[in-house]
């Protein structure tokens, strides 16, 4: 269907971002179709550019829209263009910290919260005695959140490193002790430090895989800056770990609020918490902790920026050696830290023939190093980092396979303390796995491009083009992203199945918010469908978003993060339906896409009445729990009194849910004789449930 974007065609994304009001000119039902048309209007091929144009053409400005490199570039250019007087900029940065701070939230009013860097901002709305609507702001650090968030928190420590319990035989994996780095003052070439490298990973020690850019072709760190920043920050995070252990108790777990998704109460940085779990608990008893705390007590203000300021000026790490010299407890803990840094841990060219096998083995085991250890990204230039094939692969591997990435400041910069670069990188990294996943699906599932073109469209460059097949192959092996990025700007396409009520009407959910009701949930067996999202699963055609397989049986509602993922899911279901506890009569799939930059073989959204005595809802666990589609289907089924089996793919278990009756935010609607409308281009989540039928 041709979509009229004549009023937008000549506008640049920057102009649209500056005037979102014009994007509603054709009505909210047309927003997604027009944004998709605009995204592709220039024939853009790069995934990032498509994503940027898509985002720019959306009038919805929710909390966390799609983050692209182009958007980051624009934001950076805007910052430069503002030419803000540095005094004004600094005064603006300070102002929120000069605000009065509460101890706890008041007991009255309605609250909504936003999470900004390390603080929570609660906005309270209430009606004053004169009947006026009022609001005010209550700001809390995550270290001391309001009491309700602490009350609902559960124990959740950082995990132990897998390397402590899993061994790889005859491995090419080598680790550089941090003490060697400190002694040398720079990252040595592997051939110059091979005797000091360790090949086995021990319990009670820490292994950090350092992902970084090469700053010159011959040497990754010609001026020793990466060595300085890595060493100082690792030591400073270790001190932070000691401080957290001192305040919370060495064996007292960190608290985590599952509703909000972040750690609350006394906690160190995530890296510090990992050091606490893996090093401090093994190395210290209460007396040892007291001694270590006494050693670091004078450093508290000095290391409040995690050593970044000291690192900038510490040539050859002499200052750090001096700091450690009178602190034997701290030094003993530092001795338990190791790093993997390519230049120091795999043989470098030119190398002797005897080293070739070790080089090949080391390269083969990069992902294993990351999975067995913990990845820290030494970040200086976020854009450049993510335009490099190997760096992107390492970041995606860490983020997707372990779900954990620690970002360290990688160079001197004015804003290091404010963490701007790290913040940009964090938001960019949130969506890189989604964009890369769509690129892989376009290549492998839809076959629209070669691996070379896929890499080009992802904007990934390699200093040695011969590495391209290897990097692509590794990217292809990175699993589907498990992290959910949900936002009102996500695109819904496919089919929303609606249960038929006793009177022939259908139950239409009008909200995707998770409702807390008295559902009955019973275990219904295990089912390992973790392979459903693997590339190279069952082949087949592109399944329609609604399929009828038989007259009787259950309805399978598949929820995927994009149409490509839905195709994988549907093919898997068609090939494995026999493993389910009930026969399948109908199948529907719904794509809930935060980054609609890939192929959209369906590209529309419609509702479909479904009369089935039992449903099966399949998707990734995070999407079912925290997305809007799963709770919406739950609401409709609750209204219809239909039980359902829930299969969270990553949890490998079936749960039978008897939903408690729902009346709120669900509507009974008669099915029109001509059927429900088809929304070409799909609908944004903002309007999907309201405008569906």
């Amino acid at each position: 269907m041709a979509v009229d974007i004549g009023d937008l065609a000549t506008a640049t994304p920057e102009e649209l971002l500056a005037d979102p009001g014009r994007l509603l000119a054709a009505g909210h039902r047309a927003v997604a179709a027009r944004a998709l048309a605009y995204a592709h209007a220039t024939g853009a091929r790069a995934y990032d550019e498509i994503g940027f144009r898509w985002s720019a053409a959306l009038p919805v400005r929710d909390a966390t829209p799609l983050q692209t490199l182009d958007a980051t570039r624009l934001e950076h250019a805007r910052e430069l263009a503002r030419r803000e007087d540095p005094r004004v900029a600094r005064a603006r940065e300070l102002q929120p910290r000069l605000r009065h701070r509460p101890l706890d939230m008041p007991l009255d009013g309605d609250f909504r919260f936003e999470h900004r860097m390390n603080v929570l901002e609660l906005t309270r709305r209430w009606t004053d005695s004169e009947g006026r609507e009022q609001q005010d702001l209550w700001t809390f650090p995550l270290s001391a959140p309001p009491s309700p968030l602490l009350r609902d928190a559960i124990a959740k420590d950082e995990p132990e490193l897998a390397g402590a319990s899993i061994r790889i035989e005859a491995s090419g994996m080598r680790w550089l002790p941090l003490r060697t780095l400190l002694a040398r003052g720079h990252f040595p070439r592997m051939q110059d430090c091979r005797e000091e490298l360790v090949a086995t990973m021990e319990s009670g020690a820490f292994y950090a895989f350092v992902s970084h850019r090469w700053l010159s072709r011959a040497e990754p760190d010609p001026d020793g800056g990466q060595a300085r920043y890595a060493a100082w920050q690792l030591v400073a995070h270790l001190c932070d770990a000691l401080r957290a252990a001192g305040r919370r108790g060495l064996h007292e777990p960190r608290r985590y609020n599952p509703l909000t998704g972040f750690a609350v109460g006394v906690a160190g940085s995530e890296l510090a918490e990992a050091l606490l779990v893996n090093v401090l608990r093994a190395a210290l008893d209460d007396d040892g902790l007291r001694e270590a705390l006494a050693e670091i007590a004078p450093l508290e203000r000095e290391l409040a920026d995690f050593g970044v300021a000291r690192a900038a000026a510490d040539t050859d790490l002499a200052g750090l050696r001096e700091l450690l010299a009178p602190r034997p407890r701290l030094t003993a803990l530092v001795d338990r830290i190791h790093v993997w840094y390519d230049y120091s841990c795999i043989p470098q060219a030119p190398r002797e023939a005897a080293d070739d096998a070790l080089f090949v083995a080391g390269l083969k085991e990069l992902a294993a190093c990351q999975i067995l250890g913990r990845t820290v990204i030494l970040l200086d230039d976020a854009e450049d980092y993510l335009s490099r094939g190997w760096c992107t692969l390492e970041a995606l591997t860490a983020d997707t396979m372990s779900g954990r990435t620690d970002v360290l400041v990688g160079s001197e910069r004015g804003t290091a303390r404010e963490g701007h670069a790290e913040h940009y990188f964090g938001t960019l990294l949130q969506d890189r796995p989604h964009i890369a996943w769509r690129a892989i699906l376009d290549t492998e599932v839809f076959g629209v491009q070669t691996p070379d073109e896929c890499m080009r469209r992802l904007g990934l460059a390699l200093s040695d083009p011969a590495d391209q097949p290897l990097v692509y192959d590794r990217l292809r092996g990175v699993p589907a992203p498990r992290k959910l990025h949900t936002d009102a700007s996500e695109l819904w396409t496919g089919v929303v199945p609606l249960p038929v009520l006793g009177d022939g009407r259908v139950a239409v959910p009008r909200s995707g918010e998770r409702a807390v009701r008295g559902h009955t949930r019973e275990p219904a067996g295990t089912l390992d469908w973790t392979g459903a999202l693997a590339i190279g699963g069952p082949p087949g055609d592109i399944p329609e978003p609604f399929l009828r397989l038989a007259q009787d049986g259950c309805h399978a509602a598949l929820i995927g993060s994009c149409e490509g993922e839905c195709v994988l899911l549907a093919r898997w279901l068609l090939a494995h339906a026999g493993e389910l506890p009930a026969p399948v009569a109908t199948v529907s799939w719904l794509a809930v896409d935060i980054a609609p930059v890939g192929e959209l073989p369906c590209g529309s959204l419609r509702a479909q009445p479904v009369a089935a005595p039992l449903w099966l809802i399949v998707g990734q666990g995070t999407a079912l729990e925290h997305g809007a589609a799963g709770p919406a289907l739950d609401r409709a089924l609750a209204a219809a009194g239909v039980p359902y089996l829930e299969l969270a793919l990553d949890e490998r278990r079936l749960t039978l849910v008897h939903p408690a009756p729902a009346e709120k935010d669900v509507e009974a609607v008669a099915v029109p004789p001509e059927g429900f409308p088809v929304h070409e281009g799909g609908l944004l989540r903002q309007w999907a449930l309201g405008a569906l039928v």
Partner: protein
Amino acid sequence: MSDLRERLFAASPEALAELSERHRDAIVAEFRDWLVVPEPLRADPAATQAYVGAVVRIAQQLADAGEPRPLGWLAGEGRDDPVARWQAQLANAQELTEAGSPDVAAGVLVALLDSLSDAGGPVVDDLATHARGALSAALLDLGDTGGARACARAALEGCVAAFDLDGIRIYTENLDLLDALAAGPELEALREGLAEAQDLSDAGRYGASNELLQELAGHEDIDRYAGKLCGLVGLNLFRLGDLDGAREWTGAALRSCDAADDLYGMTIYTENLRVIDRAAPAPA
């Protein structure tokens, strides 16, 4: 009030369905005019709410009967009502300032304020207040601190007149920022120190935060931030378990804010004293 609208507003649900069906075209033709709350009702929040509720009910009724356009107009489609247009202008100006074009933004805002001067009512007053606040930010980016101050002050007065507590906080903070820019390096150093103390406290380094605050207490401009300083010392002491000290310093913070007419500070520290008393009731 249009006769048709009056009848629809007064109708029962059944009558509304029947009237909507019978007068569908006329309602659709008039509906966009109904999106602006009539001037006499705007000063009365309850009447405004009832008016908006009735308009939504009619739009919903039409949507159920297969005519979705009025509901769409309510959701922002079309945008040919003046309030929506003014709101879009304000949003556009804020985006322009963010995008590094404060000169263009200032032009949009001056034109917007000009348009608003011909209209009245609480919605318009609120828009004008926010437009003045946005103009203050744009002028500050243009280096016109005098103009920025005048606009921030006008915005603050607008919020005081409407008893908009959050607006009062926002524009008081903006004026504080402008004062800091006009002052010398001494005040800047004090603000840097207080921000660092806040960072230390946020990181759970309460002792270090209080050490720094003790150093700052001797600063010659400290009276300006006495509420903040005392309040943060009290908060740090509370976290360190010294409830008596926390009560004493928080009480001092409250008195400072009271003396400075700092309503926001008074709200926060009154609540903080309640929290401290819940943890350990004050001696009788």
